[in-house]
């Protein structure tokens, strides 16, 4: 079952912050985050595990709320290079494969 991402799209000015949410109706064990630039392949950003710590990648960080079965991706002090579509991928504890959300398109303007 695919996770649900929100919002579908967000437009930011450089330096602004944004939060992207990823929710699942299925018990989660791991949540992956990827970023895809237009016309390119998705690129791995980070993994969050159930019971694990909040992760970070440059000024992009993420958290995992076990009670809500939800992960949030935080874009802090956004840069032009943060533009792209962000996907969350979720899996259970016995999964070999990820189910991906529909994506959140982030546009950062100067």
């Amino acid at each position: 079952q695919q996770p649900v991402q929100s919002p579908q799209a967000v437009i930011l000015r450089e330096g602004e912050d944004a939060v992207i949410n990823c929710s699942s109706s299925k018990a989660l064990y791991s949540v992956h985050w990827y970023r895809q630039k237009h016309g390119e392949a998705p690129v791995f950003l980070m993994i969050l595990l159930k019971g694990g710590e909040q992760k970070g990648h440059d000024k992009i960080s993420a958290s995992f709320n076990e009670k809500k079965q939800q992960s949030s991706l935080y874009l802090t002090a956004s840069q032009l290079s943060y533009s792209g579509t962000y996907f969350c991928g979720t899996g259970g504890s016995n999964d070999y494969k990820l189910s991906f959300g529909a994506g959140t398109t982030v546009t950062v303007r100067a």
Partner: protein
Amino acid sequence: NAGVTQTPKFRILKIGQSMTLQCTQDMNHNYMYWYRQDPGMGLKLIYYSVGAGITDKGEVPNGYNVSRSTTEDFPLRLELAAPSQTSVYFCASSSGQYLANYGYTFGSGTRLTVV
């Protein structure tokens, strides 16, 4: 390292034709996957493999076939192409079991149009 290599990058097929999308990885990853991405949509799993000789269906396997005779190669076969198979196809690989510590490495994709 080349990572995950997909060929061709672009292809136009006529309805009813067949083709094979090639995927090769040089990272000795056991886990390989085929996803399709329709415009404005997320990635839908077609087939996956957990090792040479072992394959299984994903969410949208109809109209496709795969094989995994070696660790490196995971080709995707389209038989009797239909317009609904117009999409961008991504191959991915991963080294980790249960996805706990290892992300996917994606190939650059194959853009397929069926007319």
